[in-house]
């Protein structure tokens, strides 16, 4: 087995706001191996983005703070690095693509400027060289007419094109890890297909690890090797993609999969997870999902479960499986 490229252990990221502490990331652990794709799914506000931002050390502070945990990248704890060292990692070792391509590029600079400065921030190359490299990268991600396009401003690009530019920029220093935070959510389906295709192609060519954040199980099924499911700041289930779809364990995961309409000939009534996601400032005692859970037990309202191994490479945070844990232990 390959050694993990990135390993996150018991990450806790909290926001200390006037109206209370938001536990945006609340005990999340996972690991990513080189060349593999990890998907993180979960509903809005479940802490997906903040997990990613924690890795890059970009939690807005104040009010945010990484309270505890370890983030080991190539064996070194990123949380112990200085701001200057982190700057050397961001954009070079780990780069990121954001959800909204319309707003992720600086509107007042040309694409050229934004590409070139990224390269020159990390490598001692001339402007000319950086420019040449930018042209190559843009070409690689499928921007037509690169020479002309590179002189343009972001607003002159469509959403899909901008996302390509973002990806090109993220790839400019050959990162070993690419974090994509809902890179296709803002795009139309046909464009989304293009971008997902591009991701696959890039991964094949450049052999980097990808963390793909999404709320769309379809995307997960399509591109991810492994999946982490998050709910209300907590990691609730992690396993291989196929395993999750075949044999998902957590009631939330199950509910999620049943509530999306599928294109099948027989239309049934949709299964529904009743209720609303909790307010992260006022989390219920015990299991956070308990108020919406079909299988809720009395214990669930009192006890917060830990991540439990249910099988090789499959962990779940649910009291239903605690027995299994004991069994495995024995």
């Amino acid at each position, binding site marked *: 087995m390959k050694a993990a490229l990135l390993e996150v252990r018991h990450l806790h990221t909290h926001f200390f706001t006037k109206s209370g502490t938001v536990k945006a990331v609340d005990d999340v652990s996972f690991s990513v191996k080189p060349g593999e794709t990890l998907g993180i799914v979960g509903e809005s506000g479940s802490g997906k983005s903040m997990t990613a931002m924690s890795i*890059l050390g970009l939690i807005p502070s104040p009010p945010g703070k990484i309270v505890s945990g370890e983030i080991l990248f190539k064996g070194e704890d990123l949380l112990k690095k200085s701001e200057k060292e982190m*700057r050397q990692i961001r954009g070079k070792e780990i*780069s990121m693509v954001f959800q*909204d391509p319309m707003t992720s590029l*600086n*509107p007042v600079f040309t694409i050229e400027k934004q590409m070139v400065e990224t390269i020159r921030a990390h490598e001692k190359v001339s402007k000319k060289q950086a420019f040449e490299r930018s042209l190559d990268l843009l070409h690689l991600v499928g921007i037509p007419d690169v020479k002309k396009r590179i002189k343009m401003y972001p607003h002159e690009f469509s959403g899909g094109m901008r996302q390509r530019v973002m990806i090109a920029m993220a790839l400019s220093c050959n990162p070993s890890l690419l974090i994509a935070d809902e890179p296709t959510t803002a795009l139309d389906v046909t464009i989304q297909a293009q971008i997902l295709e591009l991701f696959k192609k890039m991964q094949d060519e450049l052999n980097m690890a990808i963390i793909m954040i999404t709320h769309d199980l379809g995307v997960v099924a399509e591109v991810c090797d492994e999946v982490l499911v998050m709910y209300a700041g907590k990691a609730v289930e992690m396993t291989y993609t196929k395993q999750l779809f075949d044999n998902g364990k957590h009631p939330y995961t199950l509910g999620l999969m049943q509530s999306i309409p599928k294109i099948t000939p027989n239309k049934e009534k949709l299964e529904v997870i009743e209720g609303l996601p909790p307010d992260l400032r006022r989390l219920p005692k015990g299991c956070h999902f308990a108020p919406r859970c079909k299988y809720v037990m009395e214990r669930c309202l009192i006890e917060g479960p830990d991540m439990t191994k249910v099988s090789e490479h499959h962990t779940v945070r649910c009291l239903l499986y605690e027995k299994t844990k004991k069994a495995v232990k024995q």
Partner: protein
Amino acid sequence: MLKYILRRLAMLIPVLIGVSIITFSLIHLIPGDPARSMLGEKASEAQLELLREELGLNDSYLVQYGRFISNILRGDLGTSIQSKESIAYELAQKLPATIELSLFAMILAIVVGVLAGVISAVKQYSWFDHLSMTGALFGVSLPIFWLGLMMIWLFSVQFNILPPSGRMTTGVHLETITNFYLIDSLLTGNWEAFKDVLQHILLPGIALATIPMAIIARMTRSSMLEVMRQDYIRTAYAKGLKRFIIIFQHALKNAFLPVLTVIGLQFGTLLGGAVLTETIFSWPGVGRYVYLAVLGRDYPIVQSTILIIAAIFVFINLLTDILYKYFDPRIKYN
């Protein structure tokens, strides 16, 4: 771009016509007899009538307005009733003083305001932030005529370190080239004069700069805060750029746009404030000129000067619009 400028210029025409109508009608509603102002207390009724005829004051308003406009288009701003001097000439004499003071104040306001705003935003809730924002709040709440007087009292009366009035000490020699004394003294390398001029411009400059400075600082701060929240700033961080570059290049260039508009509008405050400031500091500029003309009901001056000031203001705003376009590639001009 040129097309845009031309279009914007064309759009100014109705505004300028409106401005001219307002100035014209305002001044014609002012009670009082200009002929009497001109001839003084000892003139006879017949002399007055003669003069009225001469000035065309007996014509219909429409005829007078037509004459007013056609004269202005020919660069003839009329003649002062009191001094009998061509107003265009007198304005040309006083405009440099006002422009120099306004620009000095504006540059002061922009430099200090933007810097304070940026630092406050970057170090939100720090002592600097609190201090400069309190200062800015005081700045927008201060009556500048009072501030001017208090500064005179403090610096001229109590400490006697800065002069209370004028542009330059009488007797200091200065070759004038541009009529902007600061520039002229630098051009001729006349350090004594430069120091003297600087001392003179300091107090009125500060008084005039106070409000724009405060507003620019507040605007810059909130605009910076807004921009710093934007996705592309997060992108810049994620790219591993230096904080300094992110703040002063990526953020400031975006944050400056709304500030630019405010700067344009603040020229209005400045030109209006010049009336008060120039009066207090005996600054021989247009503000004092127009105020004295209002008091003396030298209405050709009031009419022409207000028109010119409004036109200048309108053009400054046009200029900021164009600059805006220069800074913001997104703007489509329609």
